[in-house]
């Protein structure tokens, strides 16, 4: 990412954060209000600085594109993000183990090496899912007494 774009994005994000927190700070009073308002002000000023720095870099043209930019596999990235959000949502409904089985298996199937055939991918994903779920149950629940999340149904 060009540094001017990074500056602009960081500036906008900072300002959005500051605005969201500022809107929530109306009901506050006392020291807590002063403290958080001070932080919001600091972030706003910093965000504005980054915004102007980004614009200045953009206008002056002194912003070469990065040489070693690594391409991002956005498809894989959005899949894992969506899978994790679904996972957290599913846990609340069907419990930890059913949700884990579903997510581990589907993620392993989708994200694994495309060169592997369907049979191999299914077998590996099934083994991986079983090993993970069983070992988590033994180590965390039975040995360490660490609770796993429960859902509405299970």
């Amino acid at each position, binding site marked *: 990412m060009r540094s001017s774009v990074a500056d602009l994005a960081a500036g906008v994000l900072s300002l959005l*954060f500051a605005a969201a927190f500022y809107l929530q700070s109306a009901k506050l009073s006392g020291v*807590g209000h002063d403290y*958080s308002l001070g932080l919001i002000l600091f*972030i706003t000023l910093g965000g504005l600085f980054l915004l102007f720095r980004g614009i200045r870099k953009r206008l002056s043209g002194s912003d070469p594109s990065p040489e070693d930019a690594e391409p991002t596999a956005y498809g894989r*990235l959005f899949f*894992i993000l969506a899978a994790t959000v679904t996972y957290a949502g599913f846990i609340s409904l069907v419990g930890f183990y059913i949700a884990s089985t579903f997510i581990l298996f589907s993620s392993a199937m989708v994200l*694994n090496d495309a060169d592997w055939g369907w049979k191999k991918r299914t077998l590996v994903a099934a083994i991986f899912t079983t090993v*993970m779920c069983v070992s*988590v149950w033994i180590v965390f629940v039975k040995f360490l007494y660490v609770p796993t999340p429960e859902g509405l149904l299970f």
Partner: protein
Amino acid sequence: MWEFIPTAIGNLFLPLNIFLLIAGMVGGIIIGALPGLTATMGVALMVPVTFAMDTTSGLIMLGSIYCGAIYGGANAAILVCTPGTPSSVATTFDGWPMCQNGEADKALIVSLLSSAFGGFMGTVFLLFLAAPLALFAVRFGGPETFWVCLFGLSTIAVMTKGNMVKGLISGALGLLLATVGLDPYSATPRFTFGHYALISGVEVVPAMIGLFSFSQVLYLIGTHKPFIAKYSPVPGMLMHVVREMASKCKVIMARSTVIGTLVGMLPGAGGAIASIIAYNETKRWDKKPERFGTGIIEGVAAPETANNAVIGGALIPTLTLGIPGCAVAAVMLGALTAKGIQPGVKLFTVTGEMAYTFIMSLFAANLIMIPVGLLLIKIMARLLSIRLTFVAIGIIMFSVIGAYAIRNSMLDVWIVIVFGVIGYIGNRVGLDNGGMALGIILGPMIEEGFSRSVSLSRAHDDSVLQVFWNSNIALVFIFLTLLSLLTPFFLEWKRKRMATHEPKGSQHP
């Protein structure tokens, strides 16, 4: 004191105590290496088990778990850029780059040896300097705590050299995110964005898992790498690392031990703060600070020495004054009082044999850590030979369990996801996750120190500002904070000056 030492050493050689030392160490390292399972949790889990033993044996096991867990966090920090415990956040700064450079085994050995050194020397402080240091620690009131934390936060300026504004904004964002929940001053909910569950605030551990672990999963999955990093163990690496550390890290480890012990003594502060301050100080005093973050052993040795030295430091006020220096020390204090033992002078006189056996066991635990750690390193490093996809999905599953285990709340799982996305986007736009983490860790202490100082000024009818620089300790930390903030400018000025004086012919192309 000396009359108890021979008996204390003798107690360590009882077969049961040797077994508890080793078992505690293995368990501690494993717990520490699992993201979300903290040293506090490991020690707290084992407290009920100690009720079936005599107090000395119970304390030996708890101490061993504590040492093991703090060290264990470094393994995950180095191998998957996931701090196993908050104390290992700073270890990711150079440990993870070392792993990516194919030097995972070297980084793991450095973390092991420096942890053992820090833990051992921290215990020396506990043994010999407990009383005077404890009296120094109680002089820290609201303003002093505020300045110590601000000094810790000012390290961002050095950590993010070349991009200080983004570093400082990241720190401020962390501080602001730490204010979510109940206002400690007025007990009113704030920044809950309409979600009642957020009234309990943002827990540090899920936030760290999100910022460092889940964001890393997103990054790794977004690459096309088949494995996390290349793992090529080199025969004789242990001796090679020992020699390298002996030549490069002597001063760093000594300084980090002192930092760890002093920070450990302050109630509420802990390994996370100590390790970040130690990392920063190492970077500040280095002749080539730009090497930090690229994967150098000094960047692993400093935080790991400091976070294990915290153990001795945290136990000083715990055992002498009954004021726990950190959460784990508080749990151990609870275990002691449950047995009817009160901290203070009597602990070292009436029950001196038990107290000194415990202290001696900490020495032993740090020595045992080396062979046990070396054995476990070989097993844990195998993680790098597993395909990236499986590791990434596995990390997500462990992150969910670890985050949920903190408060048995699904809110923490969502916090992991949200902070993961924040961390990933932040990384992409150049914001500093380390700075944000520091803000989240230090936020509650800074706000508490600020609120207490304001209350103090109102109670004494002083001006608010006067309270903040009323004591010598506060003045020292104000000076150190200013020094820390000005360091990047000074280094830049020095670099430019050297460049101007350098003859043109000697400049690199």
